[in-house]
C-alpha cells in the first residue's frame, strides 16, 4: 500500500491524507508490547533523495517527557486545520487509536498513564542510531537542522551553546537555520558560525544598516543525481520577540519577495528540488507555500507541531517534525524530469526505551554533561502534579513559575512568557536543577518587579494575544499566550486587537482590575536592555526548595472563547 513511486503531481493533493505515512501498523504491535526498533525504523527506501529533519530540539540531549498541547487554537483560514487540532480530534483526523504509542507521542490524551507505559522520548544517542540506520539505507541523505538547537538547557546556557555544537557536529548536518541561537549575542554566533563545518542559512537575515544579506541564503547539493537547493529561513521576528539589542545590526522579517527571488535564482541555477529549511512557524509556512511558487518541500519549525503526514499546499509539502528531540522526520522523494514524482514520509518518534543508544554518542553527550553533573542532578523538590508548559494558555509549569514570582517577589500579578519550550515532569518525579533550567534557561533571565497600571496590563495582554491570534499568519510570532498569575481574564480569540481581553480580575481580592490603578507586577524575559532582578532559574529554585513538594491546583482563571 505504500509503494507510490509513480504517483504523479496531479494526484498530489488527493492522496495526501490516506496512508502515505509509515505511522500505521506498528501501533497495534506496540499495544501488544512488541514494539521494536526495527518497526520504528522500517521504511521502504523510495525514489532517489532522502531528507532527514530535526528541529527545535532546544538542547535536549537526554530523554525527557514532553506532553503535546491540549489546546492549540487556529484562527482565520487555519481554524480547525492541522496543526490546530488536539486530543481526540487529532487522533480521529489521522485515524489513530487512543492508548497507542502514537497517541502518546502526538497528543496529551491520557498522557501520564501512557508515559508510564511507553517511557521517555528523545536522547541524542537514540537520534544518532536513527540517523545511522537511515544513512545505511541512503548514504547521501541530507540531514537538516531547523534551529533552536543551541538553547534550552543548563549545559547549553553554561557553555554558550558549545555542548550542542559539539554534539551536532558529530551528527554531521548538511545545513541549519536559527532562532534562539541569536540570544547568545552576535559575537558568540559569529564565533560559532565561523567554525561551523556546514552552512548556517538565513535568506531573510539582513544587515539593518545597508539592507544587504548578512548570511548565505541557500546551498545547492547534488544527491542521488539530483540538484537540490536548500534555502534557510530564520525566525522572522527575532528582534521583536527576543532582545534585538543582542544582535543590533541585524534585521529579519518574513520577506516573502526575497524568498520568491531566491527560489527563482536557484531554479535558474538548475535546482530540480527546492527545499526551504524554515523557522517561520507552521501557519506562516502554510501561507508562504500558497504565495511563493516553486517550493517543493518546506521543513517547518518554530511552532513545535508534530504531524504524522506532510500537509500539502498546491505542489508544496510541509513537514512538521515536533520539538525537544522527540521526533526525526524522514522524507524520501522521487525526483525526475525536473519535478517531484512521488514521496514517502515517516515521522519517527524517538522512543528512548525502544531505540538502542549509539554508544559513541552516549559517550560524547556524557562528556558535555560531565563538568556539570553534580549540579544538574541535585534534587530541589518533588512534584505531585504533572508539570507541563505547551498549550495556548497557562500550563502547570507556568502556574508554578507564576506562583514563585508572586511569592518570592511579593507581587500582585505575575507575567511569564508564553514560550513553547520546556520538557514535562510526571506526578511523583523529583524536580532537579536540570528540570528547572529546562523550563527557564536563557540569556535574559532577570526577574523585574515594577508597577504597571491596569490599562498597561490590558495593552500587554492584547498585544501578545494579537501575536498569537491575528487571522493573518504573517502577523503571528509563534509563541503562546503570556502566562498570568494572580489575575484572571476572559479572551475571545476571534475579536480584533484591543477587544479580545475582558473581565480582568485581581484574584486575591476578586475585584475588577482598575485601568487607572497601579499594580505590582513581577515577570521575566523582558526584551529591554538593563532589566534588573534575580535570574528566574534561581528564583524558581528558591521557591521549590522552600515548598519541598509542589502541587498545582487546576487553573480556571483564564476563560476562553474560540471559534
Amino acid at each position: 500500500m505504500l509503494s507510490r513511486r509513480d504517483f504523479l503531481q496531479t494526484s498530489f493533493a488527493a492522496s495526501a491524507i490516506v496512508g502515505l505515512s509509515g505511522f500505521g501498523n506498528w501501533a497495534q504491535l506496540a499495544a501488544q508490547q512488541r514494539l521494536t526498533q526495527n518497526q520504528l525504523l522500517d521504511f521502504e527506501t523510495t525514489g532517489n533523495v532522502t531528507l532527514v529533519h530535526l528541529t527545535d530540539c532546544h538542547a535536549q540531549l537526554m530523554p525527557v517527557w514532553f506532553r503535546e498541547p491540549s489546546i492549540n487554537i487556529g484562527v482565520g483560514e487555519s481554524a480547525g486545520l492541522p496543526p490546530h487540532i488536539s486530543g481526540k480530534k487529532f487522533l480521529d483526523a489521522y485515524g489513530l487509536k487512543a492508548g497507542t504509542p502514537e497517541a502518546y507521542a502526538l497528543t496529551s490524551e491520557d498522557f501520564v498513564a501512557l508515559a508510564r507505559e511507553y517511557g521517555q522520548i528523545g536522547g541524542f544517542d537514540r537520534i544518532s542510531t536513527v540517523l545511522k540506520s537511515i544513512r545505511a539505507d541512503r548514504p547521501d541523505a541530507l540531514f537538516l537542522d531547523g534551529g533552536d538547537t543551541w538553547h534550552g538547557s543548563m549545559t547549553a546556557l553554561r557553555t554558550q551553546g558549545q555542548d550542542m555544537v559539539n554534539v551536532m557536529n558529530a551528527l554531521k548536518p548538511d545545513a541549519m537555520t536559527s532562532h534562539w541561537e541569536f540570544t547568545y549575542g552576535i559575537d558568540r554566533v559569529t564565533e560559532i558560525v565561523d567554525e561551523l563545518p556546514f552552512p548556517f542559512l538565513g535568506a531573510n537575515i539582513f544587515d539593518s544598516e545597508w539592507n544587504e544579506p548578512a548570511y548565505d541564503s541557500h546551498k545547492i547539493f547534488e544527491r542521488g543525481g539530483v540538484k537540490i537547493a536548500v534555502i534557510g529561513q530564520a525566525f522572522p521576528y527575532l528582534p521583536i520577540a527576543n532582545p534585538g539589542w543582542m544582535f543590533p545590526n541585524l534585521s529579519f522579517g518574513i520577506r516573502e519577495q526575497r524568498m520568491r527571488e531566491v527560489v527563482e535564482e536557484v531554479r535558474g541555477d538548475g535546482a530540480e528540488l527546492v527545499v526551504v529549511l524554515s523557522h517561520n512557524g507552521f501557519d506562516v509556512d502554510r501561507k508562504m507555500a500558497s504565495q511563493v511558487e516553486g517550493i517543493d518541500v518546506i521543513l517547518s519549525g518554530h511552532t513545535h507541531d508534530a504531524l504524522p503526514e506532510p500537509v500539502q499546499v498546491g505542489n508544496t509539502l510541509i513537514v512538521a517534525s515536533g520539538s525537544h528531540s522527540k521526533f526525526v522526520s524522514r522524507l524520501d522523494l522521487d525526483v525526475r524530469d525536473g519535478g517531484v514524482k512521488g514521496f514517502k514520509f515517516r515521522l519517527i518518534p524517538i522512543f528512548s526505551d525502544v531505540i538502542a543508544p549509539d554508544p559513541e554518542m552516549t559517550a560524547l553527550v556524557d562528556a558535555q554533561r560531565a563538568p556539570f553533573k553534580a549540579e544538574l542532578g541535585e534534587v530541589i523538590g518533588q512534584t505531585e502534579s504533572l508539570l507541563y508548559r505547551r498549550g495556548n494558555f497557562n500550563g502547570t509549569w507556568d502556574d508554578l513559575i507564576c506562583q514563585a514570582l508572586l511569592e518570592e517577589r511579593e507581587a500582585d500579578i505575575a507575567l511569564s512568557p508564553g514560550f513553547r519550550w520546556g520538557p514535562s515532569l510526571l506526578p511523583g518525579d523529583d524536580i532537579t536543577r536540570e528540570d528547572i533550567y529546562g523550563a527557564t534557561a536563557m540569556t535574559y533571565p532577570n526577574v523585574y518587579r515594577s508597577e504597571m497600571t491596569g490599562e498597561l496590563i490590558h495593552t500587554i495582554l492584547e498585544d501578545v494575544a494579537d501575536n498569537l491570534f491575528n487571522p493573518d499568519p504573517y502577523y503571528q510570532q509563534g509563541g503562546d499566550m503570556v502566562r498570568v498569575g494572580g489575575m484572571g481574564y476572559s479572551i475571545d480569540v476571534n475579536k480584533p486587537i484591543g477587544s479580545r481581553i475582558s473581565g480582568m480580575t485581581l484574584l486575591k481580592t476578586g475585584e475588577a482590575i482598575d485601568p487607572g490603578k497601579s499594580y505590582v507586577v513581577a515577570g521575566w524575559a523582558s526584551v529591554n536592555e538593563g532589566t534588573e532582578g534575580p535570574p528566574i532559574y534561581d528564583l524558581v529554585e528558591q521557591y521549590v526548595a522552600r515548598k519541598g513538594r509542589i502541587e498545582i491546583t487546576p487553573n480556571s482563571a483564564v476563560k476562553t472563547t474560540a471559534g
Partner: protein
Amino acid sequence: MEMTRRDMFALAAGLAAVGLIQMPANASEDAVEAAIKKFAGGMPETGGVEIGAPEIAENGNTVPIEVAAAGATSIMVLAAGNPSPGVGTFHFTEMCAESRASTRIRLAGTQDIVAVAKMADGSTKMARREVKVTIGGCGG
C-alpha cells in the same frame, strides 16, 4: 511638518526627487482622504502600486519601506496613523530606469502605509498596507 531630509534618505533606483507634503497636525483619516484627493484629483482605483514593508516593524522609529508603480511619474506616501500623515512624494523623470523608491519612516503605532501613484497619462492608482508596531517579547 517635522520630517527632515535625514529621514528621507532615498536609496532608490533612478534619481528620485523628494518633495514634502504640507499636512495639518492631528490629521485623521479624513485628512488622509483629503490629501489623497488633492494629489490625485479624486479617489484613485486600488492596485498597480507595490508597497514593500515589514508586516511587523522591528523598530517603529525607523521602518524601511519601498514603493513602486510601473510608469508612474510620481508616488505620494502617507503614514495614515501618524499625527502628521505626510511622508513625502517621489518624482520620477524619463531618466529613471524604474519608478521605485525606498526610504525609512517613523510610525507612531500600528497603521496603514498609503501610496498613491500618478501616471504619465494623468491616471492615478493607490495601495494600502498595514504595518504593525508591537510591544513584543513573547515569541518562542
